[in-house]
């Protein structure tokens, strides 16, 4: 596997000295009914980095990312223990409203899911539910968010047309713009390119590199090359456990665990 090689030792040191944590997961367990889906997860996620989560289907990677903004609450019969701290606040604490958590932590889903409204209204939605009615603020935010998601030039003449008229890749970037409108701290991406063609995928990947300057990004991906291309750190999940978590170069070039090696070299999964 060819990688854009950065000296991994240097990178490692940088990570240890400079970074601030956005998420600190301590001993997280999660059950769907009787099924133990996440087993004693311990992960520290750094600010303004791209953290990739890889692993075969059913390994718990999507479950984990959905726990980070408590979207998992929507699934009936889920039980958790352990803790996840977001900026040193326990997200399972009753005083930490899930609405606040989800405002600070945006999410982009597997399938582009714009609302059946205009492009403009899709982005204004987030502002409106938070009580922002000022037209000027909304207009400026719409433009800024679309620019931020590298979509403005393509849609500036038709922002009042239905979002369903956009291509799949454009729709996904619109969903990213919809997140950006709320100025989030973290953006969670759950296999954001799995429903897209290679060209659209590339655009999203380039966009992620841009967004990294301002936001902390956690991305679940099926595609190992994608993880290698865009992430700073990678966590390898298998059967609900974190097998290995390290700087991306280390994971792909000299993994410590033989199961990681087997997975990234395509022997299973």
């Amino acid at each position: 596997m060819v990688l854009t090689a950065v000296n991994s030792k240097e990178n490692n040191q940088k990570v240890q000295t400079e970074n601030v944590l956005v998420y600190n997961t301590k001993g997280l367990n999660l059950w769907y009914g009787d099924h133990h889906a996440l087993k004693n997860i311990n992960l520290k996620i750094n600010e303004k980095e791209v953290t990739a989560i890889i692993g075969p289907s059913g390994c718990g990677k999507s479950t984990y990312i959905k726990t980070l903004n408590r979207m998992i609450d929507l699934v009936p019969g889920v039980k958790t223990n352990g803790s996840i701290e977001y900026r040193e606040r326990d997200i399972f604490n009753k005083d930490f409203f899930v609405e606040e958590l989800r405002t600070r932590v945006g999410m982009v889903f597997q399938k582009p899911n714009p609302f059946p409204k205009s492009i403009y209204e899709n982005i204004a939605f987030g502002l409106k539910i938070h009580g922002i009615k000022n037209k000027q603020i909304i207009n400026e935010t719409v433009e800024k968010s679309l620019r931020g998601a590298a979509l403005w030039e393509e849609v500036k003449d038709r922002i009042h047309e239905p979002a369903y008229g956009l291509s799949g890749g454009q729709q996904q970037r619109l969903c990213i713009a919809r997140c950006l409108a709320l100025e989030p701290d973290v953006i969670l991406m759950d296999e954001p390119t799995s429903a897209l063609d290679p060209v659209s995928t590339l655009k999203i990947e380039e966009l992620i590199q841009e967004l990294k300057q301002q936001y902390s990004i956690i991305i679940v991906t099926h595609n190992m090359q994608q993880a290698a291309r865009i992430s700073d750190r990678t966590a390898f999940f298998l059967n609900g456990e974190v097998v290995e978590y390290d700087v991306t170069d280390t994971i792909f070039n000299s993994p410590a665990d033989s199961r990681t090696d087997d997975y990234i070299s395509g022997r299973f999964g």
Partner: protein
Amino acid sequence: MENVDRIKSEEMINRIDGRLTKNKIVKGLFFIATLFTLIMLVVLLYRIIAQGAPYLSWDFLQNFASRRPEQAGIKAAVIGTIWMMAVVVPTAAIFGVGSAIYLEEYAKKNTLTRWIQMNISNLAGVPSVVFGLLGLTIFVRLFGFGNSILAAGFTMSLLVLPVIIVASQEAVRAVPNELKEASYGLGATKWQTISRVVIPYAIPGIATGSILAFSRAIGETAPLIVVGIPTFVAFLPSGVFDSFTALPMQIYNWTSRPQEEFHNLAAAGIIVLLVVLIMMNSVAVWIRNRYQSR
């Protein structure tokens, strides 16, 4: 072995004729079934129109009921039906859509909810006379509304509620999960998600189901008879506590008279009722088509 195979395939070829004949017979049977229904409908419509059309006139719509057939009209019945529906539509819509949203979005999916769900579906099949008796006991006697517009309207609301609930539930269930996730993911509360995502998406389905249910309320006679709605009314109601008569009651009354002319008047009344129903159903179809192409 090869021999057996050859005999088998020859047999299969020989059977094609028989299979095709059966195919044609079945197609014919289904066609006859459809044709029979259609013919019955056409005969019925023809009889009613032939009988009632000559009696349709502006006067017929403008006059009150009368002992003299040539002066009798359906003014009180038409206005009465409009009054009744003015009670039914808001009552049934609010309670129906409210229950549907509660059951789909809020209620935990446990044995109790499933039991309630089953009973609602069963209620949709309960004969309308039974709802009439319920209305008589509760609204007419217990609440003391008498044979008023309010009593009849509430009774009809109960009658159509199960249909509206079930139709609205289906519409709410059809809202894609991804859209709800998108809303929650932006920090929306449950109510914001329901009011801004779920209801706008489900509205066409809710409206279509509700309109079909309302058209049933317009045509129902049995509950009105049980509630004690009069058939001969020569005044217009001035409020929901007034007595009134409705289109199906007027038609029922005319058909039970001995004179031939009143039967013809009944046919004319049926034409008016049919036109109203067809109009309502067309609106339902129009709404469905309009939002489907979205």
